[in-house]
């Protein structure tokens, strides 16, 4: 909707950082087979990777070079604001034979964002 995309535009003008995002399994129809949790904090990365990239931006050297080139040639895109560290979550769920499984799923939560 209009309001939300305007808000995301405003957010993306700010520097690259982690933003809150709660995934409610009811919203995606997974509550039937996931016993716990009912949702989790996944987060997402959004924001600009503008010159100069501050140290805390957790940037790769390539991102710095790309950002430098972008500062002299706007046709080259800036680096992207992406997750740079992720962590797992444990899901307790029912499999297709109605058996109960407890499993650790990799890379489900954004712990850190950076310019790449």
């Amino acid at each position, binding site marked *: 909707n209009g309001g939300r995309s305007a808000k995301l535009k405003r957010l993306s003008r700010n520097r690259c950082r982690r933003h809150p995002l709660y995934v409610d399994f009811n919203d995606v129809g997974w509550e039937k*087979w996931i016993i716990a949790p009912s949702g989790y904090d996944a987060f997402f990365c959004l924001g600009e990777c503008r010159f100069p990239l501050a140290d805390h931006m957790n940037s790769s050297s390539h991102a710095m070079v790309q950002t430098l080139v972008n500062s002299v040639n706007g046709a080259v895109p800036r680096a992207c604001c992406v997750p740079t560290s992720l962590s797992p979550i444990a899901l307790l769920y029912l499999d297709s034979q109605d058996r109960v499984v407890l499993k650790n799923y990799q890379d489900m939560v954004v712990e850190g964002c950076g310019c790449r």
Partner: protein
Amino acid sequence: GRQGGDTSEIDHGRVHPTPSALSPSLRDPGLAQTIQSLLLSRLGLQSQPDPRPGVPVPRYLVDLYHFHQQQYHLVEDPSFNFPSQHIQEANTIRSFHHNDFIFFKLSFFKKTTIVHISFNISSIPQDESVLSAELRLRRSDEAALGPGPHRLNLYLTEHHEDPEPTLLETRLLTNGLRSYKTSGFWEAFSLSAELLHKAHAGTGSLGFLLEVRPENNTTSLPEQTLSSAHLRVCRSVGQDDHSWAQERPLLVTYSHDGRGQALVKHGRRNPGGINWSERGRVKR
């Protein structure tokens, strides 16, 4: 991945971005379905499970989940033991209820009565390596064990007419451990990964024989006492699904599918910092 700005001239005729790729409409249900299928396959699932409503969930798995999440106040069974010796490297824990049981007489035990239970473990995915397992049997409070200690013998068996089952473990059942006020106590038998691999590669079924006998006497208990006095291996008449699911024998496998971290982070052998022994108790 573009932060705005037209990039057409840098393509120099190489790969022209198609406008639709620039702003895919995420409202497209087909696309959402595709993303979901990709994620499910990433989670090791062929398709989205569609369980029948009201499937009873063993308390032990729920307590394990809460304990792993360090929500100790939500762990309900005061005799809950965190299976640290099983869970070391595993990132997947699966639970199986037994298929059925057969009371029968066997000459091997001098005309005594024993119980056969079997588990179908064929649903364990091929790419998952079982590292350890345990067989959990519920003792019942309804009847005392009778005078003197009793011994529970656990045998591995190919099928219920196996004349020479393999003794896996023998254990003295004493009353002492039941000092706290709960409605029962679980006997957990550790099973080796080899035993599971062999069963999984073979028939996909794992069978056990259970025998309880008085320690100071060679005859086993008569049939009607075995079922009620000691081990909850048969459902009471009229017992509902949920309460039976909380009492029936449970096989728990601990495995790793080669993707990602174990459930217990290395260096955190003692998740949550609770001061408990290897088979310690959860402090309420």
